[in-house]
């Protein structure tokens, strides 16, 4: 055991002063392959968007195949309330896209509890108009529509390696499946192994 862990710790009565307030919340999306839509991955706290992107690559880019990451400030999203049933696209208002307007990325949530997935883009002068257009064009069959200004999204470079290509079987459940099965087979009957495996999280093997 390391010496630090063996030591007797002594502390002041009070914790040191608070240090919060230095970070903001960012939303992270990942793409599983080149050209695939970006899918909501999670949130993180970071002091700025550059570090948020670095953190996102480390935190969300390594737990599944990932070729691209988008990050934006949580405050930069505008979204409809999460509906119980599908949104009526008629509640939105479409209009002509103008090149002079800003570009907004549209994310939609198909059902409550699902993740938000990149669905397309619209051009609009402000967030309200962008959301209204997004609802009109992309709201059918969804419970929530979200828009984010494209210029506020930090993106990893196309082709930039995130998911490492070296052997990572040591950090994946399926990296152990065959050897575990073979070892069980040496001591258990097949039907007992099958019964035992029912409680595995099947879609990860």
């Amino acid at each position, binding site marked *: *055991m*390391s010496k*630090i*862990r063996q030591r007797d*710790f002594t*502390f002041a009565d009070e*914790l*040191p002063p*608070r*240090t*919060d*307030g*230095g*970070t903001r*919340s960012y939303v992270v999306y990942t793409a599983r392959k080149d050209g695939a839509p970006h899918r*909501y*991955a*999670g*949130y*993180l*706290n970071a*002091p700025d968007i550059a570090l948020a992107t670095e953190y996102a690559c480390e*935190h969300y880019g390594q*737990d*599944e195949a990932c070729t691209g990451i988008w990050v934006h400030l949580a405050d930069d999203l505008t979204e409809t*309330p*999460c509906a*119980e049933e599908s949104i009526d696209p008629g509640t939105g208002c479409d209009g002509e896209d103008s090149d002079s307007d800003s570009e907004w990325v549209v994310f939609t949530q198909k059902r*409550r*509890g699902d*993740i938000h997935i990149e669905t397309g883009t619209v051009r609009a002068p402000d967030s309200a108009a962008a959301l209204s257009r997004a609802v009109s064009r992309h709201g059918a069959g969804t419970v929530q529509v979200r828009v984010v200004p494209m210029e506020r999204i930090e993106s990893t470079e196309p082709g930039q390696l995130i998911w490492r290509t070296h052997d990572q079987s*040591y*950090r*994946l*459940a399926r*990296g*152990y*499946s065959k*050897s*575990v099965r073979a*070892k*069980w087979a*040496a*001591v*258990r009957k097949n039907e*007992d192994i099958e019964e*035992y495996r029912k*409680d*595995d*999280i099947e879609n*990860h*093997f």
Partner: protein
Amino acid sequence: MSGAANPVMNLDPAQEDPAKLAEFESRIAAGVLIEPGDWMPQAYRVGMLRMAEHHANSEIVGALPEGEWITRAPSLRRKLALTAKVQDEIGHGQMLYRVSQDLGKSREDMLRDLCTGKTKYHNCFNYPAPTWADIAMIQWLIDGAAIMNQKTLADGAYGPYVRTMHRINMEEAFHFKSGEDMVLSLMSGTRKQKAMAQEAFDRWWGPSIMFFGPHDKPGCEQMAPMRWRMKVETNDSLRRRFVNRFAPAATDLGLVIHVCEKDEQGLVTDKRVDELCVPDENGNWGVTDPNWDEFFRVIRGNGPCNAHRLALRRFSYEQGGWVRRAIAGGETILPPAA
């Protein structure tokens, strides 16, 4: 790796707007997922916050005993796997703190409350891991119990927590399989390896049985945590499924299930074969009730490793303070000497 806490529901739902509460409960009963912007009773918000915060704390503290073994892993592959697992657990903590933040408590408050012992983490992380076989048993038994619990939590009603459970479970599947592989390797090894595995199994079987919490109270299915689908399966039901899965597997592996007495350091001082741990005519395995006095003693902070785990967490928090101050853009000084 964690079992989430039983949410403490000491706020009276009767104080809520009856119409809103009725609508909320009908949505839950209909299987609708609750999103952060939806109306929810204060008791639900507080209960979910406590559950997610306890879960986050457990992920962070749970990585401490495992982190101690990274430098002593027996092979490069095991070292890589354990490093990845510890990294995953800390990542789970970050995601769960984020869920908790949305429910109304700042990350800094949560980190500080953990350091001062104001908030708790799972009791099983207050036991020692003196050998490599303990790491194997933690990953097989404790992560196995956590997966059982978290699979049910992924069927809960709070959308952000459910989404986080799906992502966490993907990684828990690796932790469990890796642990299973380690236990199988030890039990197909030398006599010394098998003895080491048996001793570790003796240390961890009891905490695994206690993992799911105390016995259910009568009528718990009708109480708020289950009625609101914060939990979807009772403690005793989860424990029964755990024993039915792991007791026959351990027996087939050649492990003997003991009832153990432990000293203040959490090390086994006496043991006897658990005569109740056999299958009945329906194939359901029995198990001797764990020592619940020990369970509550550990929860109250008097377990073998409580003080050390919290001290190490506080040490890390204080050591990292200069980084947080630097990030915040304030003046900073060199870190305190280790």
